[in-house]
């Protein structure tokens, strides 16, 4: 059966991205393998270390940065991660100096917020409300 084992974000600097995604967001490094001029660099959630890996992929392709700039200007997140409590997580991340373009917002069935990953992307964090 086909399944999703890796997804990716385009980052402007892999070392900076690894620091942000681990030290701030709280992921842990999974794979770090030299690959050409870059690295096959992935992180996972400590809640699911054998689960889906997030690839921190260099954005060197000439089309990548104009794309990132255009969607970021409109506040559109590149991807979304799940948290238990958006309000608490935003407090924690702001304490670490993380910038948000959208404060925690009640969107009906879900609460969301949007942060700047410092690597050229906006990232949504979301929590479904209890049914």
């Amino acid at each position, binding site marked *: 059966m086909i399944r999703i084992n890796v997804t990716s974000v385009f980052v402007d600097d892999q070392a900076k991205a690894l620091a942000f995604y681990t030290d701030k967001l709280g992921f842990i490094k999974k794979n770090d393998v030299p690959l050409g001029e870059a690295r096959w660099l992935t992180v996972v959630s400590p809640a699911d270390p054998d689960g889906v890996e997030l690839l921190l992929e260099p954005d060197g392709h000439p089309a990548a940065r104009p794309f990132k700039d255009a969607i970021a*200007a*409109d*506040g559109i997140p590149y991807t979304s991660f799940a948290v238990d409590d958006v309000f608490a997580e935003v407090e924690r991340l702001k304490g670490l100096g993380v910038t948000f373009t*959208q404060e925690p917002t009640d969107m009906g*069935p879900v609460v969301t917020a949007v942060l700047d990953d410092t690597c050229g992307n*906006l990232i949504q964090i979301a929590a479904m409300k209890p049914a």
Partner: protein
Amino acid sequence: MDSNADLFKALGDATRRVILDELSAQDGQTLFEICGRLAMKHDVASTRQAISQHLAVLEGAGLVHTRRQGRYKYHHLDTAPLRAIAERWPLDRRE
């Protein structure tokens, strides 16, 4: 002729009025946040492009201002143009 035609045109659309409601609730929103609120809270099925055009109409009437901060563009509510309505038809004429 009507000097505030842009203002009344801008206000004469339900989606644009909901945009003003949401900016009134939380000022300074990205296009993404506005679209999310309209879709999730108000069942507005418009495309992002259509919402962007609504915002342009509101901006043309002076009811919305945009501000660039770093790489991001935020939309702010400006109710100042509404004063023209109250001045044209004052609320209290009992004097």
